[in-house]
């Protein structure tokens, strides 16, 4: 059993604008089961952060409890981390984001941590449009406690023990849309080609960005009859379209590939190009997004890709009109107006 990743790396690894290689965004060796989808999502997060050239110390990764919530140890080893209480990651992110708006907040959660114990927190962080990326590593079961069905397990889906789930599933994308999330996507751990650009777009989006990533549990829920197995998801996934993330500096020279249908300019000047988008979906219209989700649910296919995005999103800081300088940088001199100003204020009220 290996407890460490060897330190040697490929000598020709590409470096990003900061001069870092992908290795600078990696974490410790994973202790999850071999083949766990979560590890692939960790890999996708590493790639997205590296390719976006985000300084590792400008990222905070936060999680709750569960297999998914262990995973921040396995990526971004040079970033801030907070492994919080079960289902309470959104509260911790809210506090941190209010205190320091300059960090990029990456919440990592699971289907239990989000759709069961953390459902209330999830709903409220979505409706407040906190500027964060919320990744759910969704495997439809409680892997850490031997694979019981979770709240996102589809009705009729059978886990390794063979019993079909009798309850209706919570669709996290649908719930997030209902709650007012301004960026909603779904992906699959086994499809980095789709997942990496989605994570980049979510990071660049200003506001609450949910990516519900189906992530097979190889140990308890990768059997025939499960709707969250590698094989089932590969056979039933239907992408809304292809997402291409275009950084600002490449903007001018970009040629649109065939099938181009939408371009979205992000607040930092980069843009997202959407290709071959499903004809019935308007990804900028919440009603259309909900209808498309429902259509796919009825036919039993899994809708992946970018589902909804509010191009005019105003995040919690915008709504609350907080100071542009992070709260944690404001000192007494900035916050206390001084005696003279106080007297003026008092005088104005007399």
């Amino acid at each position, binding site marked *: *059993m290996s407890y460490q990743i060897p330190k040697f*790396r490929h*000598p*020709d690894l590409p470096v990003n604008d900061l001069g870092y290689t992908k290795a600078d965004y990696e974490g410790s060796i994973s202790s999850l089961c071999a083949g766990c989808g979560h590890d692939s999502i960790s*890999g996708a997060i590493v790639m997205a952060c590296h390719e976006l050239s985000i300084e590792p110390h400008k990222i905070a990764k936060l999680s709750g409890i569960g297999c998914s919530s262990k995973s921040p140890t396995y990526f971004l080893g040079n970033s801030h981390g907070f492994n919080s209480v079960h289902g309470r990651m959104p509260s911790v992110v809210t506090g941190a984001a209010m205190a320091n708006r300059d960090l990029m907040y990456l919440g990592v959660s699971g289907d239990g941590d989000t759709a069961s114990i953390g459902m209330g927190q999830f709903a409220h962080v979505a409706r407040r449009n906190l500027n964060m990326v919320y990744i759910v590593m969704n495997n439809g079961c409680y892997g850490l406690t031997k694979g019981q069905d979770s709240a996102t397990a589809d009705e009729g889906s059978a886990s390794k023990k063979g019993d079909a789930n009798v309850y209706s599933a919570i669709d996290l994308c649908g719930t997030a849309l209902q709650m007012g999330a301004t960026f909603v996507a779904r992906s699959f751990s086994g499809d980095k080609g789709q997942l990496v650009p989605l994570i980049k777009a979510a990071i660049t989006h200003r506001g609450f960005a949910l990516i519900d990533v189906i992530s097979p549990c190889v140990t308890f829920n990768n059997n025939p009859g499960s709707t969250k197995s*590698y094989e089932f998801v590969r056979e039933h996934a239907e992408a809304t379209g292809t997402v291409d993330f275009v950084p600002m500096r490449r903007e001018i020279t970009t040629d649109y590939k065939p099938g181009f249908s939408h371009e979205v300019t992000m607040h930092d000047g980069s843009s997202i190009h959407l290709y071959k988008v499903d004809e019935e979906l308007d990804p900028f219209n919440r009603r259309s997004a909900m209808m498309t989700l429902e259509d796919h649910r009825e036919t039993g296919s899994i809708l992946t890709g970018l589902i909804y995005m509010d191009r005019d999103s105003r995040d919690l800081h915008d709504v609350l009109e907080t100071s542009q300088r992070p709260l944690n940088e404001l000192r007494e001199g900035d916050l206390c107006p001084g005696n003279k100003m106080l007297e003026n204020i008092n005088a104005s009220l007399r």
Partner: protein
Amino acid sequence: MKPTDIKNPEYFHKVVDCQYACPAHTPVPEYIRLIAAERYSDAYMVNWQSNVFPGILGRTCDRPCEPACRRVRVEEEPVAICRLKRVAADNKEDIRDRLPTIPKKKNGKRIALIGAGPASLTVARDLAPLGYIIDVYDNQFAGGGMMRSQIPSFRLPLEVLDEEVNYILDMGINTTFDIQVESLKEVLDQEYDAVFVGTGAPRGKGLNLPGLEDASANVYLGIDWLSSVAFEHTESIGKRVLVLGGGNTAMDCCRTSMRLGGEDVRVVVRSPFEDMKASPWEKEDAMHEGIPIYNNHVPKEFVVEDGQLKGMTFEKVEAQYDEDGKRSLVPTGEDLVFMEADDVLMAIGQENAFPWIERDLGIEFDKWDMPVVDETTFQSTNEKVFFGGDAAFGPENVITAVAHGHQAAISIDLFCRGESVDQRPPPQVTLASQKMGVHEWSYDNDVANDERYIVPLAPLEKTLKDRKIEVELGFDVATAFREAERCLNCDVQTVFEEARCIECDACVDICPTDCISFTGNAEEEELRQRLTAPAGNLAQDLYVSKDLPTTRVMVKDENVCLHCGLCAERCPTSAWDMQKFLYEVTKAGA
């Protein structure tokens, strides 16, 4: 690309870079693991089977394995393979009972070996256990050839040489020493079933410069002078010595001079320092002993006054390269440089010479007056006469001579049994899983970060006084263990089984050196660009799977794989497995 045929033994053989680069294809990682396990005798025997002279080669080998070592590509310095081999030799127990038994009843076939150097001794070692009657002829008083006459004792102690030469001569070989074979015809007339010529490249090249005639009393050919020292005919040299030449013989000449009374010993070479033929470590060893190397100096003249050599003049040049990279040494136009000298040693190369082979024996000679020898069978155009070592294709090195010897022995055995010498036996290959448990391997798959350890040397004040004191002390066993742990076990192969793969990407995510990709198939040139990390080292192969259910293929770039086994550890279905690949060159009679 087509799926890789891993059943072809050469595919995985090439992945074991050190073994592939070794002319004798010694299974290097196999014996390094045995050294780490303190099984020195076993490690020695793995070597002995393959390269016949582990103790000698562990001190003197040209080490083609080391520049090939994967460690060079992932960090900088190769594993000290050569000096680990010496550790096995130094620490082994008495291995004589492990040597092959020699049949009392012979097979009736008589073989003559001309020359008792590494090539001939290898032929003897392979054929004697099969019952052949073997007669060896050599002009020296004992076996070993150039290993005895040209490699100084401070690099190779006589005891080590004698021990390994005698393992072979004690196989009931009939030796005739101190005899110069003057006629191949006479040998053939004795009705040998086959004759092997392993006479080396015995003729040193000289430089016929102005003044040579008058200076000749103090000018020597390097290899002749070295053997004269080895056989104790020469015991001293002048205080000021110039050694001409940039190869390993020049390094041996200058270091030997320092031990025989030389005080101002200089190596003077025509080429730039980097282009010198000597191995980098041999240059280092010479410079460590305080010997300066003057490069870009072309010798012009021996300066003689009153019949006595005073020194030499040199023209300074610089190397210029044309479009094809061809070098020419162009004079800089500076004044000639004069260097004082009492003696001059010329070590500018050596060549083959066959004045003793009659030209009417059916042995064809080419336009350079070299015998025409088959590169695979080592047979000459006279089917009874075989060549090997430096005698076959010109000066190489000991390990190449050993490799020739093994192949020539196979040919001689086939020939004597009336079979075609072109029927080369395939290598012996095994491929076995190293899985011991869920995440347990039978090899140490941790990758050591240690930098290469340096072999300790005896102090200069001691070694420069006596040419017989060995300079290198060899690794102690504790250091040898740490050095052995640097080996990446490249022979433990990553074997991929498509039918088991569920394409979960776990191997791609964990691979520390980004060797593994799952992508659409394409022609090699394009595929190399598509991988997780670009596969720019064209000398290293791509391992391509059959099509997977998603229509992609698995592509592994072998270049910087650490053989750490993490892909197999993180694989939920054991589609990856770590399997030890042992490749042994088949020897005569097997």
